[in-house]
């Protein structure tokens, strides 16, 4: 039979064990933290290596921290986030792009102004993510829209690139007809799995014709698609389409396949693309990269007759990262973002991915197998007046869906006459 003293000893022992066990448990949870990150670009090895390196660097400086990156392709990532975030779930940090404003308007991401070290980020890049004075995304990747071309083919057609690397409208049309006559696809573009590449030639022509202010007005519903300048641009692009500028499998050719089409088989003269071209092209050939001796060149988008801003150029922010408002590790997530944004990492980004970055990097000399490419890329930026963002960054809802179906696919695919295309775009986008 238990005496009162024995009972007291047992209770005390139980309490001591509970304290010791609870202390041990809390010691374990305080040190072992898993930071979850969801990222796009699973098929771009350079970017995978970059973000994993930042994760390992952060783990070294934070014993007990484990950074777990889940890799996705873009559309599955969007679907996963749109189901996880409203449920209060999802990762601590995730990949975003500037046109995905719904995360900000719905309150699923937090302002980063006091969490991130902005001294290493270019001011113009930070502004892309600013809404009502607060910054909601950390920009990582900068890009410009370029026309990549095959120097050998251009020479074969007897055409010389002008000194400013920019053809006129009629010269560009002539180039397209010469290529087609020689049995070479002029522009290796495809819209099989992306909502924007088909609109490169059309969009850039509109930018140069209208100038940045009216270009913005067009895609924010303040300028009609029936404006005479817009009609002129659509009419010119239609002549390119009718001359066979695009491949016959334009509607089903995927973005990655268009790269291969351009520099491998069957080969094409030009590929309008963001400067993230390098992410797929500058990898080993057996992983789908361009041949080592491929005669790659860069030209400007053609100048428009009477254009308001032929020196204009689309630049922008691509890959960015945001922090989940429901994250329990916001500070650690911010440290991961900072780990990707140091000057050393910015330099590494340029040297291994061959792509512009939003990080302030002072790189004047390039070395390695693609040094000449980078020099030429910087040459094409000289004197440029930048318009930050693509049309998809400016439009939402029905207008965005119509842009994808009409300006990206149907019109360059030769499925729509000029007047139908303009009418359809106006119905969806013009608010006047």
């Amino acid at each position, binding site marked *: 039979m238990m005496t009162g003293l024995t009972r007291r000893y047992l209770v005390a022992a139980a309490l001591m064990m509970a304290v010791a066990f609870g202390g041990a448990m809390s010691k374990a949870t305080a040190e072992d933290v898993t930071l979850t990150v969801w990222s796009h670009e699973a098929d771009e090895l350079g970017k995978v290596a970059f973000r994993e390196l930042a994760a390992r660097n952060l783990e070294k400086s934070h014993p007990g921290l484990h950074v777990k990156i889940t890799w996705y392709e873009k559309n599955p990532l*969007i*679907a996963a986030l*749109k189901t996880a*975030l*409203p449920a209060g779930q999802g990762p601590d940090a995730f990949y975003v792009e500037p*046109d*995905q*404003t*719904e995360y900000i*308007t*719905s*309150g*699923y991401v937090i302002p980063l102004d006091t969490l991130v070290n902005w001294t290493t980020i270019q001011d113009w890049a930070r502004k892309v993510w600013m809404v009502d004075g607060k910054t909601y995304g950390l920009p990582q990747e900068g890009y410009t829209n370029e026309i990549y071309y095959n120097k050998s083919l251009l020479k074969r057609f007897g055409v010389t690139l002008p000194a400013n690397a920019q053809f006129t409208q009629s010269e560009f049309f002539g180039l397209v007809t010469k290529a087609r006559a020689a049995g070479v696809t002029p522009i290796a573009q495809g819209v*099989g*799995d992306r909502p924007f590449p088909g609109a490169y030639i059309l969009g850039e022509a509109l930018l140069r014709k209208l100038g940045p202010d009216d270009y913005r007005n067009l895609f924010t519903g303040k300028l009609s698609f029936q404006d005479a300048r817009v009609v002129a641009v659509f009419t010119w692009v239609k002549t390119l389409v009718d001359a066979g500028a695009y*491949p*016959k*499998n*334009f*509607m*089903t050719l995927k973005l990655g396949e268009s790269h291969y089409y351009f520099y491998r088989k*069957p080969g094409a003269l030009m590929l309008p693309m963001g400067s993230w071209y390098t992410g797929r092209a500058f990898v080993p050939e057996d992983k789908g990269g361009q041949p080592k001796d491929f005669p790659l060149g860069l030209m400007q988008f053609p100048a428009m007759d009477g254009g308001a801003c032929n020196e204009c150029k689309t630049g922008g922010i691509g890959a960015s990262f945001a922090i989940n408002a429901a994250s329990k590790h916001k500070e650690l997530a911010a440290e991961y973002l900072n780990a990707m944004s140091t000057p050393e990492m910015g330099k590494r980004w340029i040297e291994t991915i061959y792509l512009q970055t939003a990080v302030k990097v002072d790189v004047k000399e390039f070395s390695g197998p693609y040094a000449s490419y980078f020099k030429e890329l910087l040459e094409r930026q000289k004197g440029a007046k930048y318009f930050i963002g693509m049309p998809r960054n400016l439009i*939402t*809802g*029905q207008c*965005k*869906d119509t842009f994808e*179906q*009409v300006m990206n*696919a*149907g019109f360059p*695919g030769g*499925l*729509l006459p000029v007047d139908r295309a303009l009418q359809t775009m106006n119905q969806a986008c013009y608010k006047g």
Partner: protein
Amino acid sequence: MVAFLAPALLIYAGFTVYPVLRTFYNSVHTVRPHGVLEYVGLRNFAELVRVDPVFWKAVGNTAIFAIAGTTADVVGGLLLALSLFSRPPFAKFLRVVWFTPVLMSYVVVGIIWVWIYDFDWGFANLVLRWLHLGALTRSWLGDPSTALASVLVTHIWKWLGFNMIIFLAALYALPGEVLGAAELDNCSGVAKLVHIIVPMLRPTIVNLLVLSFIGKMMIFDLVWVMTGGGPLWSTETVSTYVYKRAFDWNTFDLGYPSAIAVLWFGIIIAFVVMMTRLLRPRDRLEF
């Protein structure tokens, strides 16, 4: 008994009943920023019916897909089953070959057929060029006039074997003495098919018509993989449009896409009830 069924019921409730009820609930709400739900009554439905041209285009495409596809599936499946029922040479091999596509996932089937339909190196155009019919080559999935039919052909190719197997089983279950009696009465093959076999297969035909119709009214995977609803909405179905409104538009508002889903659910139910009433047997066959 309840304890035995509880795990299955829980899973059913969590993954089927709750999502359906939640969809009905969402359809009369709009999701505002920060997840705030605002009751809007039937506004989503009114906007859908009155001012959404893409929805009606999707309805038209889905209706064509469902009617043409169901007819082809059932008629084609019956013909294949009848051919196997007549015990031709290599019947077992043909049965396996015709049934194999049923076992493949929509994603694999879609990717294969995107390659088949490719303009430059696709098998379809290669055959046409080899037959000196180059003028007939098309960008099958890139042309609004052929895209829907091309996806439909792929879908029929995948599902024909399923209907074939069901019909074959039903044919083998038919009473032999009835068929024997028909042959004794010098009943021709076509007459036997039309007046004896098809009436006896009526329950199977009705079931397959209903199943096939429901499946095609909800078609998503194949269209998404092959065309994404393009070009120019020519292959947009109600399911792909629901997905786009839910995940591709710059919004977290599930109210409008839920309204589409609820409306379509009602339409499918109405059609299924109509079909079963119209096609139910008037007289009971005795044999």
